[in-house]
């Protein structure tokens, strides 16, 4: 399931033709992975590497907010919803309140439509169910390319 502001494109659109272009454009993008599960962090990091992206990884929302507060800029933030210390909803609200205009993509294992909607309303651009796959990352990178 993907939720997004105006998301209408199919996940596989331009994937075959556009993958090489996407990879060559990706190398300058900075990515932050925010998730308290080390397995998920490792998987997402590896997925992103396959697209030529290097990610910073942190384990809770507060660390993500602190990084941005101290001036680190990310093109893309992959944000888990449920984390200790500061969850994804709170972190997303704080980042948007700080003026962070990175593409923020929620990644959640929550089944509830209501919970996902609440997460979206915090300021996400898109929200996906875990785990991320190559298709979902392709879609995200297409959106990132559009934004940049």
């Amino acid at each position, binding site marked *: 399931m993907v939720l997004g502001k105006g998301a209408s494109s199919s996940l596989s659109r331009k994937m075959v033709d556009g993958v090489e272009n996407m990879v060559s454009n990706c190398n300058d993008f900075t990515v932050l992975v925010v998730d*308290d*599960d*080390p*397995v*998920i962090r*490792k*998987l997402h990091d*590896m*997925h992103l590497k*396959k697209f030529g992206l290097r990610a910073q990884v942190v384990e809770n929302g507060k660390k993500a907010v602190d990084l941005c507060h101290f001036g680190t800029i990310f093109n893309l933030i992959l944000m888990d919803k*449920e984390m*200790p210390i500061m969850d994804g909803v709170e972190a997303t609200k704080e980042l948007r309140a700080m003026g962070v205009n990175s593409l923020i993509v929620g990644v959640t*294992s929550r*089944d509830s439509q209501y919970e996902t909607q609440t997460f979206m309303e915090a300021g996400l651009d898109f929200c996906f169910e*875990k*785990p991320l*796959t*190559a298709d979902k990352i392709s879609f995200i990178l297409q959106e990132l390319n559009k934004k940049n």
Partner: protein
Amino acid sequence: MVGTTLSQELKNYIQSMHDQGVLDHHFDHVKALQNEENPQFVMEVISMFCQDAEIGIAEITRFLNAPVVDFAKVINLVHQLKGSSSSIGGQRMALACRELRQASENRDKERCLEIFERMKQEYNTLRGCLNAISQMERTILENETRRRNP
């Protein structure tokens, strides 16, 4: 060649785990991330998953056996287990976690304990499967290393 036979054996084994519902397509996505630069990726993920799962299960045991169950903590732990088991492709374990979460949200201790037993069984099955895969991956890698460095 021995390596090729083992690779086929591994494929067949993974397929049989799919057929039994122990693994789903998410495991294939994990496997697809492995490459020459990261030949031990699958083994590393399996090791990480099992280590974290065992810690999580021990913690859930502690909380469920307490005189007064802290269901909020149980929910958080189960949520994490659900996420990681789902991501590694352990669909039966992930399903058991979902049910355990529901029972925890209903604050039904008896139901929690019942489902928790089933979740642990699913974890044991999944762990056995993942350990077998890890062992085959290790042997394939060793054979490949020996082939390249005779």
